């Protein structure tokens, strides 16, 4: 490889750098870069790695709190759960690669987020996935759904980490850009957190894991670009996953961490050896020398450019106390993984890379890693929004047969039962899954304690399209409601912010608004955002996705004997509604599925009421009053009640409900007013539950009774549960099997 070759404007453009960015690079080097250095900077300053368009806004997010042990900036966030224990979690996107190659894209997305968690010293104990696909009728959708779901299972299952929940939704806006957001949570001792800092001059830098190949070169740059007709040519930028090596790497790392020789550790994810070396040196304010001749390689003839930019999976970079290399060697030998001392820590604040004795990279760390360009891009709302908000629900024709509407909604891909998806994931391995996928939140036990961890992910992107600020607030509120509905205390949040091209002002405006909405809601719920990820350029041929700020929330269940699940328990139990029904149809699933419209203003969010409803629900559960609790969201009250009847594993159990609200029946049954939870309690507990709700200031009403084989609502709905169950459970297999 010719390091003397001049860097032409074409080469600079191919590396995704603007003229200003190139100028900035030359200034910080005091000379022009060679091709390897340019390659390094192109990934370090890519949107994916540098957050150059988002950083300025992310500063608004609340990131600290009494339980936060590690906020954003490390591989993942860490939150104290008491008993000397902590949980470590993060969510990350793998959207672009999953669209190009669904199985490997999704699989390596899972692999990457798992490494982020065990890098911190935590043993991963659960995964979630938030997936968005295009219209099920679109020619690519079936292939993408099958590939992504198989890929998630194909990596998570062999790892032995249960995938316990998440979301799957479909919309035309994702036809050209699917979303694959992977979340992992791990458990660790609160006083044993490992971080990615290359401290201690002279300490060896050690490479462990898979060999380096030519796969995934410029993956991070690919993920920072929009798609067009040449997308198939990008397949080689997608990495290939090997869960078997990752499983061995996980066990080897945790064994290593049980000792005391490790100084710092970071996974080689996006931008591989480049990102890990620069970031580790930057965090410690140190430098590093790397000798590429020592890097284990999969093939001959790799150039320094290839080695530095490879995104081969299942690799870790460690800094170990000098003289203790043998301890690392012993453990790696046991697990049959490669180990090589590839360099050492320096105190000159520079990364120097040697190849066959020649210096091929000599760059200052801080300007490349810490002071990447920062943009405050122009933002303004799309003018079409005002028009979309013009909507009068009273002018909407009322469907003649509301039973038919309910059947249609329950069998629509967004509301249909997702068991076809989660049955392909091992969701029980590790024997902690107390509440399985399909409920409002999954609940995992923490062995050796009475505690549980509740997990959910939420985002209604149609809401966020119509109003990104309120849409993001509603996503946080729904996530918290899901946690509360199972008896958990909302603890903290990680996010995955999926947007279009930030260079377009209307996208930047969506981003800014969504971040502001999330920040406000998270402050109100006292749920700091401890980690997260931004994915821009989810756009094909100039058409972007709906803004999709996925919220993954972690809750703490103080006592696993006091939890609630959504399904009815016994005939004769009384059904209560916490919260209030409203005339709110804007942005609803009903409006989209039945009337084919995406418009209106969103359900309003009265924070005081929201908090009161959640508090009342949690108190009802901890006092043992509540027998079932289910959040009311997409599809409205009718869909919520139907789910309570259909989710039971012990057979179907119906309900008869009489609502006295003075609302049009479609708004009453299918409207998506926020801050509502449906409860069932034993007849003798009704008064106590009503008292609890009143004490907490939550609106409450007795609305019906559990029992029978059908769902009956006022004189508008009467459907047989067996028919409903069939429609609900067969919809996805019919589409995708």
């Amino acid at each position: 490889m010719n390091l003397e070759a001049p860097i032409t404007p074409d080469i600079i453009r191919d590396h995704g750098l603007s003229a200003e960015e190139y100028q900035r690079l030359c200034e910080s080097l005091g000379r022009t870069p060679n091709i390897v250095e340019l390659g390094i900077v192109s990934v370090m300053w890519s949107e994916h790695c540098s957050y150059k368009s988002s950083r300025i806004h992310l500063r608004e997010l609340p990131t600290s709190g009494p339980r936060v042990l590690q906020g954003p900036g490390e591989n993942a966030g860490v939150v104290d759960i008491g008993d000397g224990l902590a949980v470590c979690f993060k969510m990350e996107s793998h959207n672009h690669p999953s669209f190009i190659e669904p199985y490997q894209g999704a699989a390596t997305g899972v692999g990457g987020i798992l490494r982020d968690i065990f890098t911190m010293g935590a043993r991963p104990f659960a995964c979630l996935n938030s997936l968005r696909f295009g219209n099920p009728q679109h020619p690519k959708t079936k292939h993408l759904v099958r590939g992504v779901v198989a890929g998630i299972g194909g990596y998570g299952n062999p790892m032995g980490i249960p995938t316990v929940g998440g979301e799957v939704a479909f919309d035309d806006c994702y036809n050209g850009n699917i979303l694959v957001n992977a979340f992992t949570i791990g458990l660790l001792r609160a006083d044993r957190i490992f971080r990615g800092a290359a401290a201690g001059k002279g300490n060896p830098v050690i490479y462990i894991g898979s060999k380096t190949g030519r796969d995934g070169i410029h993956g991070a740059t690919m993920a920072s670009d929009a798609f067009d007709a040449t997308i198939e040519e990008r397949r080689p930028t997608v990495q290939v996953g090997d869960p078997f090596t990752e499983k061995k790497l996980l066990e080897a790392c945790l064994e290593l961490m049980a000792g005391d020789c490790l100084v710092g550790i970071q996974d080689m994810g996006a931008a591989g050896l480049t990102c890990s070396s620069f970031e580790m040196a930057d965090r410690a304010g140190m430098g590093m020398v790397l000798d590429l001749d020592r890097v284990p390689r999969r093939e001959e003839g790799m150039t320094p450019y290839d080695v530095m930019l490879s995104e081969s999976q299942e690799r870790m970079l460690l800094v170990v106390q000098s003289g203790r290399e043998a301890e690392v060697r012993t453990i790696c030998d046991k697990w049959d993984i490669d180990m090589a001392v590839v360099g050492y820590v320096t105190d000159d604040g520079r990364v120097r890379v040697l190849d066959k004795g020649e210096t091929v990279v000599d760059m200052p760390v801080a300007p490349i890693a810490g002071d990447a360009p920062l943009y405050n891009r122009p933002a303004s709302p799309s003018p079409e929004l005002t028009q979309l908000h013009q909507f009068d629900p009273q002018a909407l024709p009322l469907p003649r047969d509301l039973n038919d509407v309910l059947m249609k909604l329950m069998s629509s891909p967004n509301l249909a039962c997702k068991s076809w998806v989660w049955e392909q994931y091992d969701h029980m391995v590790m024997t902690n899954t107390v509440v399985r996928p399909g409920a409002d939140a999954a609940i995992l036990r923490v062995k050796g304690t009475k505690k549980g961890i509740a997990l959910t992910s939420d985002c209604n992107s149609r809401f966020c399209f119509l109003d990104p600020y309120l849409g993001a607030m509603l996503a946080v509120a729904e996530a918290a409601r899901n946690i509360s509905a199972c008896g958990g205390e909302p603890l903290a949040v990680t996010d995955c912010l999926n947007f279009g091209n930030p260079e377009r002002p209307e996208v930047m405006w969506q981003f800014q608004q969504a971040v502001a909405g999330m920040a406000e809601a998270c402050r109100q719920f006292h749920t700091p955002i401890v980690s997260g990820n931004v994915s821009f350029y989810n756009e094909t041929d100039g058409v972007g996705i709906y803004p999709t700020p996925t919220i993954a929330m972690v809750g703490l269940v103080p006592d696993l004997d006091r939890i609630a699940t959504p399904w009815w328990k016994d005939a004769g139990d009384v059904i209560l509604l916490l919260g209030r029904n409203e005339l709110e149809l804007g942005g609803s699933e009903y409006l989209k599925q039945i009337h084919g419209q995406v418009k209106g203003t969103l359900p309003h969010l009265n924070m005081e009421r929201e908090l009161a409803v959640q508090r009342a629900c949690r108190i009802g559960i901890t006092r043992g009053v509540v027998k079932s609790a289910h959040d009311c969201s997409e599809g409205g009250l009718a869909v919520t009640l139907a789910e309570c009847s259909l989710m039971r594993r012990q057979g179907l159990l119906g309900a008869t409900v009489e609502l006295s609200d003075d609302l049009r029946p479609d708004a009453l049954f299918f409207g998506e007013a926020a801050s509502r939870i449906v409860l069932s309690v034993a007849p003798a507990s009704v008064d106590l539950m009503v008292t609890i709700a009143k004490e907490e200031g939550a609106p409450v009403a007795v609305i019906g009774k559990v029992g029978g084989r059908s769902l009956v609502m006022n004189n508008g709905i009467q459907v047989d549960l067996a028919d409903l169950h069939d429609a609900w459970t067969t919809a996805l297999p019919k589409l995708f099997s």
Partner: protein
Amino acid sequence: MKFGIVVFPGSNCDADCHHVVTHVLGCEAVALWHKETSLQGCDCVILPGGYSHADYLRCGAMAAFSPIMTAVKGHAAAGGLVFGICNGFQILTEAGLLPGVLMRNTSIRHICRDVTLRVNSNQTRFTRLFRAGEVLTMPIAHNEGNYFVERRQLVKLEEQGQILLRYCAPDGELTEDANPNGSLVAIAGIVNEQGNVCGMMPHPERCSEAIFGNRDGKKMFESML
């Protein structure tokens, strides 16, 4: 009673089995690394679920040649208990300790869910606490659980009461819908001729505690004590 739980690279249910043996049964358990050659005096060897050696070639094919398997075979020949769950069952067939083979599920998808099982024979060390014909609920989680064995061998299995568990409907009926993976005559678990080596696809360790609302698995472990 002392249990040994073999850990192959890629095993992922070893810790779950260890938890049940020690915390639920109150017995002693040791982890046996696949490169070891001694069973450390264990009375019962568990081959746990997982993806040993990444299921390379065929599920269980590599693990069957791990150094520890020589000791496991010796233990089985001497009448000691060997219990293979999921990947452990696949390893036992590859090692020749149990007849038959586990092929890809007919749906060609991974399946993780509760299934109902009928106790076909309760005259074994692994099922003696159940009633014959009793219907159990246990989770499965596998890609390759589709059991097959050639005709003559099947007749032998049936005649000698070696079929322990069969997939069934909740009422105990053997229906096509109740067979999740296409197994021959809905076989979910078998024992060897001597009755001391058992392999099964369902996961008893995942339903051994009250917190999961199902302790059918615990009874299976207790049968061995």
